[in-house]
């Protein structure tokens, strides 16, 4: 039996700033909550290919697992949690934008 496809988002780093970004329905956002949640494997693969072709905007696009809580994506792995919130020693990463 094929493994069930878990929800995903396309994430990458921004070419100029280097910071973590997420693909939305029509662009990119620095906030995970605004990311487009992909629940179909074929859609996810297609969106990743599209993202990977945007070489003058993003670097290192990949699919990251998420769960959907109250209608918004949340990380399921601690690495993605840190990418979404910033480093834990200073509140000057994404925490600033998120607060």
């Amino acid at each position, binding site marked *: 039996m094929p493994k069930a496809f878990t929800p995903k988002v396309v994430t990458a*780093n921004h*070419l*100029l*700033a*280097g*910071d*973590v970004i997420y693909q939305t329905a029509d662009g990119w956002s620095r906030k995970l909550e605004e990311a487009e949640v992909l629940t179909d494997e074929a859609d996810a693969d297609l969106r990743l290919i599209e993202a990977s072709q945007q*070489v*003058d905007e993003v*670097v*290192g696009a990949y699919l990251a697992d998420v769960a959907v809580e109250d209608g918004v994506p949340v990380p*399921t*792995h*601690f*690495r993605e949690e*840190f*990418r979404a919130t*910033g*480093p*834990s*020693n*200073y509140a*000057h*990463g*994404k925490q600033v934008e998120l607060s």
Partner: protein
Amino acid sequence: MYSYSEFDTAFLAERNAQFRAQVERRISGALTEDEFKPLRLMNGLYLQRHAYMLRVAIPYGTLNAAKMRKLAEIAERWDKGYGHFTTRQNIQYNWPELKDVPDMLDALAEVGMHAIQTSGNTIRNVTADHFAGAAADEIADPRPVAELMRQWSTDHPEFQFMPRKFKIAITGSPNDRAVTRAHDIGIRMVERDGARGYEIIVGGGLGRTPMIGKVITDFLPEADLLPYLEAIVSVWNQIGRRDNKYKARIKITVHEHGIDEIRRLVEERFVETRKTFSGVDVQMLREIEGHFAPPAFVQADTAPYARALETYPAFRAWTDTNVTPHRDADHAIVTISLKKHGDTPGDASAAQMRLIADLAETYGYDEIRISHEQNVILPHVHKASLPSIYSALRAEGLATANIGLISDIIACPGMDYCALATARSIPIAQEIATAFDDLKREHEIGALKIKISGCINACGHHHVGHIGILGLDRAGVENYQITLGGDHTEQAKVGDRVGPGFSADEVVPAIERIVDTYLDLRTSPEEEFIDTYRRTGLAPFKAALYPETKVAAE
């Protein structure tokens, strides 16, 4: 302080202009990331978890005030107001933007600094004893030799695309503060029958296969150094494995072929390389040595220092831990702790960098060093200046009296910053330091080195920590393995793994159990942790860490 020549200045300018054009082409889309990545890495620019990271070389950890002020200026102007000093004696900026990096490199070039060979499969920044030129136990200052090696290895055409990175460390003291036995090549300056030479150690390294280096020659004449090094790197470049990234280091080559076979191959190659060195390298070394002449040490009354020691207990405690004997009896070596309890190990703010620069200029003959243990050194300070230095450091949060103690922790950036890391290092270091500070037990515990890495690559040198902590990802949860009995000195040893790992919440209690066990076992307060461990072995510590295993066995 070594001053770069017009050739060096022109070389940096040309190199920076080249990189500026490459960045412009990347931003315009003319270069893809695959094309650009090797170019940015050649200039020390990584893309990490949250941002770009620029790694700047501090050759053999030596700086002066002008260079330190420039590092502060860069931190403020293009980063978030601080820099991170690393176990390779470099500084890393964690938040630069791509478009700004060429300007940052130009700013560095103004003071003869750069980021060349701080990344890539090449000979990296040569590191050295952080007390070089000042230590009372030193045979000779190793930095002129390190500078000679820097000049030899920079842009060396044969060594730009090797199987993997290559790290060289050198010490001029019998007491090894440069971790020479855990480098691809470790060099110890030695004397025999009145002649200066080198013991060459090959094939050390940490990472996923930690190994202590082996002596390939116990006495290499001074004039043979560069041709012999060239022979070693050349042999490895030829036979080192390229089929597997994790087996591409010289330690694996030495392990697979055996040190005797490697020695034979190097000697064979050395016959060829020797012919290509005309002796100009030794002339250059003599010239370089002139740049590292010791300062004209001032004479002054040391009575104020003696009075301060008697009058101020906090000053006394600081001198006990942070001040080291100097080759000149009236002078001292000051280690400035970048490990204030609860802070990030190795981080310094721009204000702190400027204060250190001011102190170096006012009291320290304009000399600064960075240690592989992520602290800053003022190598030459007259004892009469120590009270003033202490006061100034205290005002800027830099007077933590903990060098060599349990809170003087090496910690790599870990998952908070590094794209390779599998767990965080910094919060673990912060929690341990804060917990033992709260208990006020550090001085009772005495000398104890904790080293933490956030992944198997071991940038935090955990294998050679008295207590080593390795962060891993276990089924999506941070998990920390502990090793005991590691040693980075001339008695270098890889630590012993105690058993199953601990969750992040369990690390501090585990360290407390280790420390309690040591305090119960030690024969006297003079017996240091590492000596107790060597005497008792792992068993009592394991029993304390895993009491349930003991119960089950009973």
